[in-house]
């Protein structure tokens, strides 16, 4: 599956975030607090400008594996073309595993396209794997 042409290309780098970890552990993985700390991507002011968005707006991140809607934050520490987001169900919806390309899943560095959207943040419940076994 190839990436769509809309929006701008970004490489999302994931990281462990203690604030997200604490609310996930304390309030639960499905809590609003956990969603708030997980559904966020930090990008450079230049990329934010390219997207014609303001700090706090929403973008749809689309990868070869899936898409999510997250909040966007401007971060001067980010280089143009790069984005950072906490490792979570959101980043793992975008991540994939292709052993012909790499030995490990691409959990840490994910190629996406960011597209401005008016859609709501993807609920955590939509990111759960449903089981169908009888």
């Amino acid at each position, binding site marked *: 599956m190839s990436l769509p042409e809309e929006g701008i290309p970004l490489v999302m780098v994931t990281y462990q975030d203690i604030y997200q*970890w*604490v609310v996930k*552990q*304390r309030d639960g993985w499905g809590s609003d607090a956990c969603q708030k700390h997980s559904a966020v991507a930090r990008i450079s002011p230049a990329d934010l400008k390219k997207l014609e968005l303001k700090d706090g707006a929403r973008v749809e991140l689309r990868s070869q594996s*899936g898409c999510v809607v997250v909040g966007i934050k401007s971060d001067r520490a980010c280089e143009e073309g790069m984005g*950072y987001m906490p490792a979570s169900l959101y980043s793992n919806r975008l991540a994939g*595993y292709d052993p012909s390309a790499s030995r490990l899943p691409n959990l840490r560095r994910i190629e996406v396209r960011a597209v401005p959207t008016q859609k709501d943040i993807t609920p955590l419940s939509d990111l759960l794997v449903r*089981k169908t*076994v009888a």
Partner: protein
Amino acid sequence: MTAQSLVCTGCGCLCDDIQAEIEGGRLGRIENVCARGAAYLYSSVNPERRASSLVRGRRASLEEAIEEAARLLSKAKNRLIFGLDNSTLQAQAVAIELARKLGAVIDDASSFSYGTLIQSILGADLPTCSLSEVKDNADLLVYWGSNPTHTHPRHLSKFTYYAYTEYDPAGWLPTNVTLSCVEVRDTELSFMCRPAFKIKPGGDQHFIRAVLDEGQDGTGESQTFVELIKKSRFCAIFCGPGLVYSLDDDFSSFEQMVHKFGEGTRMAVVPMVAEANLRGFDQSLYKQTGYVNRVSFAAGVSHGSEFSFLEQVRNRLPECVLIIGSDPFSDLPQSLMTNLEDVNVICLDHFSTPTTNAADLVIPTALPGLECGGSMLRMDGEEVALVGPKKGEYPTEEEVLQQLAERI
């Protein structure tokens, strides 16, 4: 309430100086714990956060859940046992025995994180040291692809930089030690490091090659790194997931670099393991089979990438998966985990997680360190004894696994 000593099993540091007020089922004030450990320990007394005994979404007795788990494991042809990185050494031993008895595949999260690094350390291909050796002895601390302020909040204060005895006259910074890091972004740690080496995401291999060429790439950064190591007596490198993923599990150039500088400087590598006892699982399996993960007991002992959790799931091989104290439905790509949609999944866990949510069968277990004893291996391989001062209503993983083994 009186304070009791316990070991926090919230991460691979296994902090053994925790004091907690415990009375009956209540947990009062906890001292010496970090934010991560506090959230971990306090959530153990929140019933909404604990896992419940479930059979296909329906509340069930523990007895019923164990019986059904034994039935599912017995009838399946291909079984996969995964996890155990937060289990005690004792529970891990029973699980390895169970895998042997079932002829199952057994693997843990190290197969997509620190496994290769730990195998190199256990095989003496890479030098290592204990964290107690680091304090006051190592004069260069390098955190590589790791930000302990978020993952292991007490690492610097309990074991490394801030644990040193001698400080400058102002009392701010320890003397005779340099704190450094190799990172792709600015972090709380990189601001403390003098110097911090900022590289491009995925640029670790390039940086290592430049270091091996003694900084001949002209960036200046690698040259500074070379000089830093050459002038140190004892350099401890703490390897994080950033390094592991950037190298795509190929540590050959990293090993080459460590050996090259080992001629003039004592070099030691410590994996910044996030899980409480991943090191223990890898070491236990290594002792029994010669491999730290990805083992099949179907015909004797076999090892290979085809026995990794990733490959087993990608190729839809297992008919029944037993997941113990791990959360792959949260931590791995969802596009991969959907392959388990029509596979029986049994999950043993202390807490409610996306994996217990997806599992067909959930068996709740006691929290090691707080609700049960045993022992674990810290990230540096040192064994830490657990007390378990707060007796709870949950069985230990070891007990559940023993019961499963008896019924199969």
